[in-house]
């Protein structure tokens, strides 16, 4: 029995040269010092990719890439197909984790100076992998085809449209027409399941080939400089001195890290669940609360925080410059110090990028810039901000709702947060200031002058003037004195003193 097995194995070996393949790949020698937790992010990224392919194949069995049915097929997965939601959850969290782990991998490579001579191409192929992965995350979000997806496609199209010369044609190719519909969805579908995964496979192969060919970067030591003339010899000495086969000697920590990663992804899928689908995409419904998926949240925050008109910079110039710098990095600093302790600029860049992206993402998650579209009719004002008001002030509160101020402004914390909370607005603004703000708008607030009659304006401002805590007096001039409203108001001015304020009598 054993001998037959042996014969078969040998027969195969003679034809496939498996031992040689093994020795060149899994068994290739690496510096022993690389068996470190910091070197596990690369394999974790690969694991994520495998998870995505696996779950993606199963998702594709149920998903229908058409505008009319995609939404329904996701609902089927969520609610009807057994464990369909787990599959969606794993695919969603796998994608998020893949981007995060990939970022950690890049950071490690950057801080360890691994991109320097002779591993320039490894870095560049890695950068390509980053962009392909982001493309996958982006096109994957489009698959949901809800309002978030719509927002994404809209932004994507406007970015592509800014590319000189080919921009318009590119948008047309991407969307398959002037509107975002079935054509756009099927294009993004083939991007997401054929083109980009194919590209990723190809570049992963190249990337691994380069890793094997040029060897894994040794743990840098402060003061040991990379020189083009001597490095290759230096590296082969390290391998000779402390080289161990990757499997089984250096892979242990990778296995543990990947096990944890899988547990985290499955755990997130089981306990947090899949994302959406949210409100279905519908070109006739105004998109109010769309947000992109996690990897793009920081861009979303930028778009919301930067002043109007900066979009061309944000969505075209900045990505172009940033990616150019990224790709050219190995040529900008090709030699020299590798250890992060001797590279303060590199450390600063990492800290700043993480801080920036982290803060922006946090802002995007917590900052509800989107107006709350049904607050005007569906969100009552807390009783204490209604009670004790005069009839005029009560009508002012009605105007406040009717003009949909509430969609952008909270009272007592409830309502939209586009504009400031107005719970105590009377303590910081006087009556004329309030009138000006309402009539002329300003900042990101529209001007309401044309939509409000003088009576509505006075009622509204009377109500706003009543918004102050009982023990804090309103801003001076604010109470009871209604000045004639400026030139914008052609109608007769009110008789001062007509406005009754409780407690004055």
């Amino acid at each position, binding site marked *: 029995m054993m001998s037959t097995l042996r014969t078969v194995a040998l027969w195969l070996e003679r034809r496939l040269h498996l031992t040689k393949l093994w020795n060149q790949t899994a068994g290739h020698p690496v510096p022993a010092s690389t068996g470190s937790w910091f070197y596990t992010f690369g394999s974790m990224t690969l694991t994520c990719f495998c998870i995505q392919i696996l779950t993606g194949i199963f998702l594709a069995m149920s998903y229908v890439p058409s505008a009319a049915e995609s939404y329904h097929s996701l609902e089927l997965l969520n609610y009807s197909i057994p464990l369909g939601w787990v599959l969606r959850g794993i695919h969603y969290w796998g994608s998020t984790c893949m981007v995060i782990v990939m970022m950690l991998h890049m950071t490690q490579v950057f801080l360890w100076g691994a991109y320097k001579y002779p591993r320039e191409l490894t870095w560049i192929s890695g950068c390509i992998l980053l962009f392909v992965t982001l493309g996958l995350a982006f096109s994957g979000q489009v698959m949901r085809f809800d309002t978030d997806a719509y927002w994404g496609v809209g932004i994507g199209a406007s970015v592509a449209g800014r590319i000189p010369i080919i921009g318009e044609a590119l948008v047309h190719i991407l969307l398959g027409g002037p509107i975002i519909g079935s054509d756009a969805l099927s294009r993004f579908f083939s991007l997401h399941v054929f083109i980009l995964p194919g590209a990723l496979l190809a570049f992963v192969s190249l990337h691994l080939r380069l890793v094997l060919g040029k060897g894994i970067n040794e743990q840098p030591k402060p003061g040991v400089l990379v020189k083009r003339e001597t490095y290759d010899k230096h590296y082969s000495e390290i391998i000779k001195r402390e080289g161990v086969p990757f499997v089984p000697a250096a892979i242990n920590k990778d296995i543990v890290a990947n096990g944890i990663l899988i*547990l985290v992804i499955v755990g997130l899928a*089981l306990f947090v669940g899949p994302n959406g689908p949210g409100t279905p995409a519908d070109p006739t419904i105004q998109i109010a609360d769309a947000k992109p998926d996690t990897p793009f949240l920081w861009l979303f925050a930028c778009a919301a925080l930067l002043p109007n008109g900066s979009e061309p910079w944000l969505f075209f110039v900045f990505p172009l410059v940033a990616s150019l710098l990224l790709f050219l990095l190995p040529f900008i600093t090709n030699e020299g110090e590798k250890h992060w302790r001797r590279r303060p600029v590199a450390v600063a860049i990492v800290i700043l990028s993480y801080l920036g992206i982290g803060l922006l993402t946090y802002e995007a998650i917590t900052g509800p810039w989107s107006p709350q579209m049904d607050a005007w009719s569906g969100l009552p004002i807390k009783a204490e901000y*209604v009670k004790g008001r005069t009839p*005029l002030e009560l009508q002012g509160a009605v105007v406040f709702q009717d003009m949909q101020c509430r969609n952008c402004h909270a009272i007592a914390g409830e309502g939209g947060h586009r504009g400031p909370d107005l719970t105590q607005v009377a303590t910081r603004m006087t009556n004329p200031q309030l009138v000006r703000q309402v009539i002329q708008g300003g900042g990101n607030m529209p001007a309401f002058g044309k939509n409000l009659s003088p009576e509505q304006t006075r009622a509204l401002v009377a109500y706003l003037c009543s918004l102050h805590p009982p023990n804090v007096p309103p801003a001076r001039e604010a109470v009871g004195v209604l000045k004639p409203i400026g030139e914008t108001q052609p109608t007769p001015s009110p008789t001062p003193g007509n406005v009754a304020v409780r407690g004055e009598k």
Partner: protein
Amino acid sequence: MNFSWPSILLYTCCAGSLLAISGCDQLPGKPKESDRWIAPDAIKDFKQLFGTNCSACHGDDAAIGPSLSVQNPFYLAIVPKDVLKKLIAEGVKGTAMPGFAKANGGDLADEQIDILVNNLAGKAATQQTSGSGKTSSENLPPYSASPGDTDRGSEAYNQYCAGCHGQAGNGGKKAGSIVDPDYLHLVSDQYLRSIIIAGRPELGMPNYQEFVKNHPMSPEDIANVVAWLASHRHGASEANAAVSPTATVSSQ
């Protein structure tokens, strides 16, 4: 630390059994039916319809609205069903009450408006049959009537209202001005009438039976007070329509 193939197996088993043991369907990650998106047109629940479309201005069981509570038992007892439907569908022109029918730029399907009307009318019915309310025992004043006599309205005002709203209507200790031209410009005569009959108990304004003890306001007094109030509007002499004539802004 030294991990071997058995430990890999262990890990996979852990992950696998985690999936299996959990029964999955009870886990918090499972999408809930309640999170499922419902087309706005498909909402058929009265509470939800009223909550999202009306409560911000009219309040509901839990909240006080700046405008009259349309669930006030006196109001529901007097308002005819067809008028209610027309009000919701078309709104009140010249006031902040928008029309909710699609034909009037609103978001509600006819069926949904019927749900609102039927449920509100249904509330009125249960309030009456339950017998607890004073709404059934008394002869209620009619929902609408043309405004009465201004001078007699002034007298009636002094009798029923001045105690709270002040001698000239300019506001008193217990309540604010109701003769402010801006205020009057923003509300219709019918609204004033509804308020006098139904009161605003949530704000401390009694209904028509309670202003003077054991002496409910007569329908004539109500119409006269409405006329007297309306006479304080700017340009009130020109027109005395049921809807404030000077209103300029179309609803919504």
